């Protein structure tokens, strides 16, 4: 499935925005402006952009937590400033400042993610079940990392999704690390996607640093599920060129990770550099276009930060919060 030049432009711009906002989030947490934690996306943002860009508004998406799903969310067309305000504990946060880091955009069919890794699996079954029950034509973009496949939940979900032929994309952003452990030390096989074979779910592997290759796989997976062919598994092989979360050690098992290798990845495997180079080479964009985009996106980041700063800190009374526990 080949991409149009317009699709490539949109993907590239989404990645540009994701990278810029990821850097802004890193700056904000370092100066103490985020209330909770942040897990840098770094050079692993291409799969998230690919996952979100071609979804329709009514399609359900569970973003991966890396970069806290910013790449996924902006690509799905979500107004990201309310999500960033949430990270800053503000009243205008998408969860009214109550969650620290959860997205919630019910109109866009993003109901959140969870601090419990693997919670995406059974809930995605429910989203897919509802889509099929309602015959709504919705698909489910169920994003998580390779580490999340250690949770038994993934097996229950793959079993149910396959058995009921649910429209669920198991979108695995495999960066080879689970917290401070190398996936190679945690799983017996080389590829997480091999798990799908046990459930008869078709699976493929794609270079997660190649934005356009990921996007082609996303389009294929969306079509597969939209047409009622049941679940599909896409493993995007990506990289984590930094520690798990801000302030953590950067180890794999007992040993520090190789800093030279990570620097090399940043030089040679950065998906934005690769995508920009390709679009320049194919004359889809000029350097002027890219420079203009850089200025626009920098302005967007600045506006978002100003919006968040202007929003009051959410400090509701205990009584107000108690009144908000149940749906009326």
């Amino acid at each position, binding site marked *: 499935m080949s991409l149009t030049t317009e699709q490539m432009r949109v993907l590239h711009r989404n990645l540009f925005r994701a990278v810029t906002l990821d850097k802004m989030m890193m700056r904000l947490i370092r100066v103490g402006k985020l209330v909770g934690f942040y897990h840098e996306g770094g050079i692993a943002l291409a799969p998230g952009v690919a996952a979100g860009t071609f979804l329709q508004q009514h399609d359900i998406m569970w973003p991966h937590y890396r970069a806290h799903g910013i790449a996924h969310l902006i690509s799905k067309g979500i107004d990201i400033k309310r999500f960033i305000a949430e990270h800053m504990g503000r009243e205008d946060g998408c969860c009214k400042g109550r969650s620290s880091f959860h997205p919630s955009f019910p109109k866009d069919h993003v109901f959140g993610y969870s601090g419990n890794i693997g919670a995406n699996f*059974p809930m995605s*079954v429910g989203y897919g079940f*509802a889509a099929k029950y309602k015959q709504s034509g919705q698909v489910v973009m169920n994003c998580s990392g390779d580490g999340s496949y250690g949770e038994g939940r993934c097996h229950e979900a793959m079993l149910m999704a396959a058995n009921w032929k649910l429209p669920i994309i198991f979108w695995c952003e495999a960066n080879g690390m689970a917290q401070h452990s190398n996936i190679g030390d945690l799983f017996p096989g080389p590829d997480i996607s091999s798990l799908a074979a046990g459930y008869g779910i078709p699976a493929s592997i794609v270079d997660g640093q190649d934005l356009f290759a990921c996007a082609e796989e996303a389009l294929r997976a969306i079509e597969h599920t939209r047409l009622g062919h049941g679940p599909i598994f896409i493993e995007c092989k990506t990289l984590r060129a930094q520690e798990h979360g801000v302030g953590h050690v950067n180890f794999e098992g007992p040993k520090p990770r190789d800093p030279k290798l990570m620097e090399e990845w940043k030089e040679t495997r950065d998906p934005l550099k690769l995508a920009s180079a390709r679009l320049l080479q194919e004359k889809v964009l000029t350097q002027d276009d890219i420079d203009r985009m850089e200025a626009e996106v920098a302005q967007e980041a600045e506006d978002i930060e100003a919006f968040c700063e202007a929003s009051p800190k959410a400090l509701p009374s205990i009584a107000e919060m108690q009144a908000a526990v*149940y749906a*009326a």
Partner: protein
Amino acid sequence: MSYEREITLSAAIREAYVEEMRRDERVFMLGISIQAGTYPQTKNLVDEFGVRRIVDTPLAETGMVGCAMGAAQEGLRPILDFMYAGFSYYAGSEVFLQAGQYHFLHGSQHSLPMVMVGSCGLGRHVGNEHATLPYGTTIHHPGIKACMPSTPYDAKGLMKAAIRDDNPVFFLWHINLMMHKGLVPDDDYIVPLGLADVKRAGSDITVLASGLQVHHALKVAEKLKDQISVEVVDARSFEPFDRDTLLKSIAKTTRLVIVDEDFERCGFAAEVSTQMMEHGYDLLDAPVKRVCHPNLPIPGGYMDTYTMPTPERIEDAIRDVCHWGKS
């Protein structure tokens, strides 16, 4: 003109399912072997509603609960049958950390209507996994409602209220009441969650109980009627809990025994007892007494018939509280 019929508690739950599924296309059921009908309340439902709405799942409780949550967020109204309520613990994170807390944490923007159903209770000699009563554990976690009927009337009305509620509700029913019979009207009615019921009026002491223990309390009240006038209050709903009805009762009787088939430590009885200390201290003439399952695993074999609160233990507690300060 309305009629009443005498039906079992199980049949009453079944009627609630049928009526609510006919009324609302969004309601569906999922569980293990519910098409065949592990319990009579789901038997033959598939004949009317088909396999689309009566869904047999793999043995995968975590997947089941997540499936119900996701379906609820996408606009359906699932009823999830755990068979045994203790099986809910497989999905501890989903049930306790997520289902009830999702709404608040995500800005109270989007409801999550789902009913979880499970049998519980002692007396079948099968040990802890099948007997455990998870209402205390459930209501420890904010955002999830929980109830347990003692009569077919309450069972049908509470189930209908639970299905129509926009929040997660854990509906527990006592296994030894499955074939318990009572009158149920033909009319559409609900028993609101959060409304206790005075099952027997009395003036000397209040006994708060739920499920099977309501019947134990009623038995003791009848036995003691010429010596001690016992008021029996059925909690019916643990969360929301109807504190006002209980306070009104102890304002009259000045004495309280709480019967709770769950473990004593940190349980519903402990919670209610503290609430009475905080809100009803001046009304009481004697300390509150609990009759609970002791803090040991629910045994199998013959022992569960006396580790559970028995009429004898309830009677002893009533006599103790009534004689407090008089010896």
